[in-house]
C-alpha cells in the first residue's frame, strides 16, 4: 500500500483521470471547498464575536451582583409594609464578614449635582467610591489616576472625571489634571480622566470622588446608595446574592420572603446569558459547517459513482489485463481523497483570506463587532482529518461499484 502511494504511476493515473474530467472535477472541488470555506469563515466569525464580547466584559468582574434598598412588600415584626429600606456601611461590612464566598464588597453612593468650572457648567452624576471599585469595573484612564487610600483617609477633594465631563468643562486639548472644578460649591482637583466603558452595570456615572469626601459634603453619614458584591471565582454568584439578601433582611427586620425590599442586578447571570448565546452560535456554526461538508463529500461520491459507471469498460479491460480488484478500489478511493484534499486546501486558503478581510474591515477599532476572527490550527487539522475519513468512506461506494461488474460483462459488446 505504501508502495502504491509513492509510485509515480499511481499519480499519473490519477492525473489522467482528473484531466479527462475537468468540469466534474471543478464542480466537486467547488462543492467541498465551499463547505470547508463556510466552516472556516463561520467558526472564525463566531470566535471574533466571542472575542469582542470578552473585550467588552473584560473590564468587568462578571461574578458580581449589585444590591440596593427599596420598599418592603410585607408587614413584619410590627412594621407596616411599604417601609423604606436604606443600606448602610455596616451592612456592607456585615456581608463581607459573614457571607461565605464573598471576595469583597464595595459600597457606593451616587447623586446628581451641578458642576461648574469658570463660566462652564453642567449637571452630572457623581459617585462616592472606594479605590476597590477599580477591581469591579476596571476604569480605562486616559490621564492621571483613580482614587487611592490616601484620598480616602484624608477625605481629599479630588475628582476622577469622565471624558464627557472633560469635553463639557474643558477646552479642546486643555490639560485637565491638576485643574479645579466646583461641585456643590466646593473646589475639587481633577486627578484623572477616564473613558466610558461600553458595558455598564448600574447607573451611568460621570465622575468619581472619594467615598469619604462624598459622605461629608452630601451629609450621608453611614448611608450608602448600593453595594457591589463580588464573589470568589469558585463560588456561585447566584447563591452569594441569595445569602447576602437574607442576611440583610435579617438585620433590617424584613420578612424573609419579601421580594421587593432589595433590588439587585446580577452581572453573572447577564454574562451567562451572553456566553450561552455564544455557545449556541458555535454549535450552530459547527452544525452548518459540517452539514455543508458532508453534502460536498456526498457530491464527490456521487460524481465518482458516475465516473466509475462511465468507465465500466475501461475498468473491465484493466481487470482483463491483470488489475486486481484491490488495485482498482485503491485508485478510486485515492481519487476521492485527493479531490477532498485539494478542495479543502482551496477552501481553507479562501476562508483564511476572507477572515483577514473581515478582520481588516469589521475587526478594527474599539467598537469592532468581530475582534480577531480566527480559527485554530487544531480545528483546521481536525476538519481536514474528518474530510479525509469521509473521503475514504464515500470513496468506498464507487470503489465497490467499480469492481462489482465482472470484467466479462464490462467488456461485452453492446
Amino acid at each position, binding site marked *: 500500500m505504501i508502495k502504491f502511494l509513492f509510485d509515480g504511476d499511481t499519480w499519473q493515473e490519477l492525473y489522467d483521470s482528473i484531466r479527462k474530467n475537468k468540469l466534474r472535477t471543478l464542480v466537486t472541488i467547488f462543492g467541498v471547498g465551499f463547505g470547508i470555506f463556510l466552516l472556516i469563515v463561520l467558526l472564525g466569525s463566531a470566535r471574533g464575536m466571542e472575542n469582542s464580547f470578552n473585550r467588552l466584559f473584560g473590564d468587568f468582574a462578571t461574578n458580581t451582583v449589585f444590591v440596593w434598598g427599596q420598599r418592603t412588600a410585607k408587614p413584619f415584626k410590627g412594621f407596616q409594609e411599604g417601609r423604606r429600606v436604606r443600606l448602610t456601611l455596616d451592612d456592607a461590612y456585615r456581608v463581607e464578614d459573614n457571607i461565605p464566598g464573598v471576595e469583597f464588597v464595595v459600597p457606593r453612593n451616587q447623586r446628581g449635582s451641578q458642576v461648574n468650572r469658570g463660566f462652564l457648567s453642567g449637571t452630572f452624576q457623581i459617585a462616592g467610591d472606594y479605590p476597590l471599585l477599580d477591581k469591579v469595573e476596571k476604569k480605562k484612564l486616559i490621564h492621571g489616576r483613580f482614587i487611592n487610600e490616601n484620598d480616602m483617609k484624608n477625605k481629599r477633594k479630588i475628582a476622577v472625571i469622565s471624558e464627557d465631563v472633560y469635553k463639557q468643562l474643558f477646552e479642546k486639548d486643555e490639560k485637565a489634571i491638576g485643574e479645579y472644578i466646583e461641585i456643590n460649591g466646593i473646589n475639587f482637583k481633577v486627578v484623572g480622566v477616564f473613558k466610558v466603558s461600553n458595558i455598564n452595570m448600574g447607573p451611568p456615572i460621570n465622575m468619581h470622588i472619594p467615598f469619604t469626601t462624598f459622605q461629608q459634603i452630601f451629609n450621608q453619614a453611614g448611608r450608602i446608595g448600593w453595594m457591589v458584591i463580588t464573589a470568589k471565582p469558585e463560588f456561585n454568584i447566584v447563591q452569594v446574592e441569595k445569602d447576602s439578601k437574607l442576611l440583610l433582611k435579617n438585620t433590617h427586620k424584613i420578612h424573609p420572603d419579601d421580594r421587593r425590599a432589595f433590588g439587585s442586578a446580577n452581572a453573572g447571570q447577564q454574562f451567562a446569558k451572553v456566553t450561552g448565546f455564544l455557545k449556541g452560535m458555535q454549535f450552530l456554526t459547527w452544525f452548518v459547517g459540517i452539514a455543508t461538508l458532508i453534502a460536498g463529500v456526498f457530491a464527490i461520491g456521487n460524481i465518482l459513482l458516475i465516473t466509475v459507471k462511465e468507465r465500466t469498460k475501461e475498468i473491465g479491460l484493466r481487470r482483463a489485463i491483470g488489475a486486481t*480488484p484491490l488495485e482498482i478500489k485503491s485508485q478510486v478511493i485515492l481519487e476521492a481523497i485527493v479531490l477532498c484534499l485539494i478542495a479543502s486546501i482551496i477552501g481553507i486558503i479562501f476562508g483564511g483570506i476572507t477572515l483577514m478581510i473581515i478582520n481588516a474591515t469589521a475587526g478594527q477599532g474599539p467598537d469592532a463587532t468581530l475582534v480577531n476572527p480566527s480559527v485554530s490550527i487544531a480545528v483546521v487539522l481536525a476538519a481536514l482529518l474528518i474530510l479525509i475519513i469521509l473521503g475514504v468512506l464515500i470513496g468506498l461506494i464507487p470503489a465497490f461499484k467499480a469492481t462489482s461488474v465482472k470484467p466479462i460483462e464490462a*467488456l461485452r459488446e453492446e
Partner: protein
Amino acid sequence: MLKINQLHKSYKIGDSSLHVLKGIDLSVEEGEMVAIMGSSGSGKSTLLNIIGMLDVADSGEYILDGLPIDNLTEKKAAVYRNKFLGFIFQSFNLINYKNALENVALPLYYQGLKRKKRQELGMFHLDKVGLADWAHHLPKELSGGQKQRVAIARALAANPKLLLADEPTGALDTTTSYEIMEFIQQLNDEGKTILMVTHEEDIANMCKRIVRLRDGVIMEDKAITQVRASQYV
C-alpha cells in the same frame, strides 16, 4: 499446453437456466492456432471467457500449462490473466486518454515493473507491430487496423503463454482483416499459441485447426491446411 475435460456452464435467465456448455473436451498443444467457430449462442464466447478466466465453469477440469485452474479468487484470476494470457478484442478496448505506448505498457504496470523498463518493453512490442513511430499518438489518431495492432502489442507485452482473440477482425474491413491475420500468423510462426473465436470462414481457414461448436457441444474438430493471409495482401 491447455487441457479441458467435461466443461459445463449454464446461465440463469429468470427462473429457467440455460445450459450453454454441455461437456466440452478440448486440448490444445503449444504452437497451435485454433479457430473456434459456431453460430451465435453456440457457446463459443463462453468457452473463450472461461479459458480467459473471465468466467468460471460450473464443473469440469481446466489445466493451463500444467497448472490446474480452479478455486479462482478475483485476485488470483487477475494475476493469472496478467501472467499467462493476452487478450485481443473485437473493439480493441484501448484506453482513449492514453497514447499507444502507454496502452501497450499497461499490463506491465500491473506486473509491477518500473516505468523505464515498461517504456522499453512497450516500445519493443510497438516496434514489432510496426507502430514505433506512432508511440505517442492517442487511439483516436489511429486507423482501425493500427488500433488492433496496438491492442496486439499490448496482448504480447506481458509475454503470455496463450493469446486469446475474440473476433479480432470483426470490426475491420477485409483488407485490414487480412493484414491483421497475416500478423497473427507471424506470431504463431514464432511459436505463440493462439486461440480465436470467429464466425468468418475465411478467417478461420487461416488457422491450423477449426473447432466447431453447436448448442454447447463440439460438432467437429479438425486440422486444416493453413491459408496464408500474405497471399491476399
